[in-house]
Structure formats: C-alpha cells, structure tokens
C-alpha cells in the first residue's frame, strides 16, 4: 500500500490537472460564443450569394460554366477537408476523418486532398497519395483570405481537368453537445436550387456576362468553404468545452477516490501506532 505522503502527492497532481482543464473549459466556452457569433455574422453573405446564384441559374439557363456542368466521366476526385489545428476536442476530428476515410475507400477513382487545419493535413497525408494544398494555424477570427490559397488550388485543378469533382468535408455545428461531420459536393455546384424570381428574364450585365459570372461563381464556392470553416471553428470550441468539462469531472472523481485511500492509509497508520504503544506498555509492565 502506498504511504500517506505518496497519496498526498497524487491528490495534488490530479487537483492541478483539474484546475488546468477547468481553465481550458472556460476559455473554450468564451471562444465558442465568439465562434457562434461569427457563423451567424457570415450567414448574410452566404445566403445572399446563394440567392443570387439561384436567380442566375433561373435567368441564364443556357450558360454552361464549367462549375455547373456535370462531367460524364469522373476520373479523379478532390476533397477539401477542414479540421482543427489542435487536439483535446473529443472525437470531433476522428468523426470527420472516419467520413473522409469512407469516401476515399468507396471511391472507385483516385482521390487528392486539400486540407485546412493541421490535424486534417497529418491525417489526409496518410490516406491519400496526393495532398495538393494545406493550410494551418487559421486564426479564430478567420477571414476569407485565410482559405483562398487552398480553395484556389482546388478550383485550378478542377478547371485544368485534373479532378472532375470536388467535395468539402467539415463539422457542422448542430448544438453545443452535437457536431456532425458534413460532406457536400462543392464542384460542380448549384444543382437544383430554387429561384425566387420565376419566369423568363435575364440580367443586365456590367461589364459583360462572362467575367461577372466567373467571378461570382468563384466567390460562391469560396463562401461555401468559408462558412464551413466558421462552422468548424464553432464545433471545435464547443467540443473542446465538453471534453474539458468531462475531464474536470473525471479528475474530481479521482481526487475523491484518492482521498478515501489516503484516509484509509492514515487510519491504518494510527491503528498500528496504537497497537505498538499498547504492546510496548504491556511488555514493560
């Protein structure tokens, strides 16, 4: 049996761990609120551009931009994976990666990956042959420019016929307790959107239709990825908050157990001492 001193040391250590996890929980909670606000703030743009694209599909149905034309033969696919930079966020990344692995294994063609977040990079490197673009250390107050590089590579490969479909995988924020990995097709996109202005009409284009459409569709794709990143941030912090809360609770449980063991050891020591004193007194009497 461990001595009382050793157990005291263990209790101290576990209590310190609990303090750290508690602090991390509180930090994650405040970051989560901010991240959720960011998701809401970014929604205006995402919904706005989606509405515009839907109207565009209605207005200009004969225009076949490569972004909206389904390709007959799919020879290679690309996947943009968004995950966190840091761990300690429960099964968040693992759940997303399971989905990524499923896609890679089920795909009958080769897969290449573009990743956002360090964890995504280290994982996708192992399961696909081509990791074509990766970005890390995206700040919590993310800006569009943080992801443009990765999305740019994906779009470029798509336009150059290196890949025929591009998917996006990120964690969707359902609520604080629930985050679910979400896989969406990014390119070709804009299938089956509902327009708000039915009938036959077309826009006036300034300066011309092609550059405007090219620019808009590109921004549309970027905005889907960006919104995915914001969702993923909200997921990261809420998952971390929950994970740290359960770690704190577990630590408290361990401290409880250790205290009982400590008291038992202390009492055993006292009992032994009394026994020794008694037997000493009896012998000298």
């Amino acid at each position, binding site marked *: 049996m461990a001595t009382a001193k050793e157990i005291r040391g263990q209790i101290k250590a576990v209590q310190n761990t609990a303090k750290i996890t508690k602090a991390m929980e509180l930090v994650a909670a405040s970051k989560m609120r901010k991240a959720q606000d960011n998701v809401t703030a970014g929604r205006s743009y995402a919904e*706005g551009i989606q509405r515009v694209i839907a109207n565009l599909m209605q207005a200009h149905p004969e225009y076949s931009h490569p972004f909206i034309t389904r390709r007959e033969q799919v020879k290679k696919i690309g996947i943009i994976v968004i995950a966190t930079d840091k761990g300690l966020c429960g099964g968040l990344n693992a759940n997303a990666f399971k989905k990524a692995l499923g896609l890679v294994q089920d795909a009958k063609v080769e897969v290449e990956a573009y990743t956002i977040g360090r964890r995504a990079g280290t994982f996708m490197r192992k399961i696909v042959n081509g990791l074509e673009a990766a970005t890390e250390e995206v700040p919590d107050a993310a800006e569009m420019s943080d992801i443009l590089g990765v999305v740019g590579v994906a779009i470029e490969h798509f336009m150059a016929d290196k890949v025929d479909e591009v998917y996006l995988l990120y964690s969707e924020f359902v609520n604080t307790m629930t985050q679910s990995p979400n896989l969406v097709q990014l390119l070709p996109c804009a299938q089956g959107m509902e327009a708000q202005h039915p009938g036959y009409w077309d826009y006036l284009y300034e300066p011309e239709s092609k550059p405007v459409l090219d620019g808009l569709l590109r921004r549309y794709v970027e905005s889907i990825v960006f919104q995915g990143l914001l969702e993923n941030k909200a997921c990261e912090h809420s998952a971390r908050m929950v994970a740290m809360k359960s770690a704190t609770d577990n630590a408290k449980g361990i401290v409880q157990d250790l205290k009982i063991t400590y008291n038992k050891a202390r009492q055993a020591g006292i009992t032994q001492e009394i026994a020794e004193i008694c037997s000493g007194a009896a012998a000298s009497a």
Partner: protein
Amino acid sequence: MAATVSVLVATPEREVYRGEAEMLIAPGIAGELGILPKHAPLLSALTAGELRITRGEEVDEVFVSGGFMEVQPDMITILADSAERATDFDEAQAQEAERHARELLEKREGDIDLAMAEAELAIMASRLEWIKKKKKH
C-alpha cells in the same frame, strides 16, 4: 413617402448594412451606377469606392473594396469583399484621437505640449461634431 428598395451589404465575415433606400449609388467597374427602386435586374462587378445609400435626408456611406452587386426590382444585394461603414469607422477613430488628446492634456508636460494637445483636441472635437451632424442628416 417615396418608393424604397431593400438593401443588403455583406462581406464574408459580417453584415455591414441592411435597410431601405430611395437611391443607391455604387462604384461599378465601368463607372458609378445610380440605382432607383424597381430597377431592371442587373448584375455588376464593383470596384473599390464609396457606396452611397440615400433615404430622404439620410445618407449612409459605406466603403467597399470591390465585389459584386445584384439588383432585383425589390432588392439590392451587395456582396463586398470587404466593407467599412464610413460613419462607424470615422467616429470610432475620432473618439480615440480625442481621448488621446485629453490624456495629453491631463499630463501637462510643458507649455508647448499643452498647446499642441489643446489644438489637437479642438480639431478632434469639431471633427466629431461634423461626423455626428452628417449622421443626423
């Protein structure tokens, strides 16, 4: 009341402006565009410049760094790459400068510094006044 059209100005990061307008002047890539309610559907690329949203006497100014504008008869959507509302921006800056000037005044380090700080404070105060007046009208 004159006819209005609803206006939404958003950047990927946040919503900058949402409201009704009697007229909107946007920095189109091929020159300034003035849009009135019930305008025909239009899709335009924007260049960096000032967006003026007019409603009665009220004029809101938003600086956009480029992006796209969709016009529908009842709705204008501006998808800016980045945008800064002139009123928010200037007032915050002016207030910061004013605070700084006051701090300098309180320190009272030498007469020259004091005179400079006083002058700075006067300028900042009038600028703040002007922005507030502009906001009101």
